[in-house]
């Protein structure tokens, strides 16, 4: 339920940001984390940043989801599988 992945903000314009999530670049809303800006790390769930995290925590979480568990290979899933709820 509700998997959220850490991503780094590369660009932003108002409440919309482009983030780097593994090999993928995606558009997310910053409406719930208005203080986050370019260079910051956020947890992304269903196209929305839900929490700002430190880079150390983001890297640790990324290691957990890629090495131990929750994603087989980020960016390697089918388009339908990538869009899972939560």
């Amino acid at each position: 339920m509700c998997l959220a992945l850490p991503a780094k903000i590369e660009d932003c314009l108002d409440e919309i940001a482009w983030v780097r999530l593994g090999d993928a670049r995606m558009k997310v809303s910053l409406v719930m984390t208005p203080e986050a800006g370019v260079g910051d790390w956020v947890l992304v769930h269903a196209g929305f940043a839900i929490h700002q995290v430190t880079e150390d925590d983001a890297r640790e979480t990324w290691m957990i989801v890629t090495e131990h568990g929750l994603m087989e290979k980020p960016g390697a899933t089918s388009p339908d599988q990538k869009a899972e709820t939560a």
Partner: protein
Amino acid sequence: MALLETELADLATTIGRPVKLMEVCGTHTVNACRSGVHSFMPKAVDLISGPGCPVCVTAQRYIDALIELGRRNDTIIATYGDMLRVAGAGGSLEVARSEGADVRVVTSALEAVETAIKNPERDVVFAAVGFETTAPATASAIITAANEKLLNFSVLPAHKLVIPAMKALLSDPDIRIDGFLCPGHVSVITGGDVFGPIVKDYKKPCVIVGFGANQIMEGIVHLVRQIAVPEAQLENLYPEAALSRGNPIAQELIDRVFVPGMAAWRALGEMEESGLDIRPEFGKYDAVGRHGISFGEDREPPGCRCAEVITGRCKPLDCSLFAGVCTPIYPVGPCMVSSEGSCQAYFRYRRHELKSPMARVRVEV
């Protein structure tokens, strides 16, 4: 891990009775199965899955209504991918799509709004499933649609709230749960404090954990330590993301657009204030009224035990359909469809434990 395993075994011996722990979150279920956490459990400690997979707890009537809507020529259904293959009474959204229905997978509620903007001549209905983590995104999409004065966007709401489900499980005398591993990312939104009533009123230990195998194992040890005392506390082992009061902006989004209301759950039935209704001021974005939807009855697929799996009454391995009739390629119930469903997690990582010859059938997923 070895130290935790030893401590867990010692604690289980001290307690001297069977202990049942529930991981509420589907992502915890998947990672516990994947990383072999179950193999570290002493015999007396049973780790069971809970109702934390949004697709799995979505009532059959909702799936049926969505498919019926999708079959209308003027409608586009926008949905998260894991809803596609859930079987309704008359097929799935995937089947409806193969028969011509316009069903589009989106990764975000805002993508559904963009679909409506790009297709002004069609009605776009967004299938809004998910728990507290996902609900603010739907709220934000509805607010965006209102700001854009969109006339062709609506939401079929099926959001669920975690605490009512936990209370329902605790109120059932057939399901005896000693403690909960609480969902980390629900807590990011709601704040960890929402689990307070489970500790205070039901005297059940609650531990909020992250998603790594070590974090899950540590959470289990913390729960069993409490049970050994015995005491009931709320502990937060995921403080870097889950604050005690959560994300206030996300909570405001939910409150602005939704109000707690009755929700129909697979397995748990109808429960007051366990879901989120769209407030009347945003009523024109509610697909139920806009499209005159009347929900039918919930009919479970014959032989399917998803309802029992969701409530911890049985495990996927106990279902006679598991891995034979029901596989991720040909799923019968939602728990085998969703990547967060217990049955799919067991199929991927634990089906070798099944004694029947079907367990040895190799099916690529």
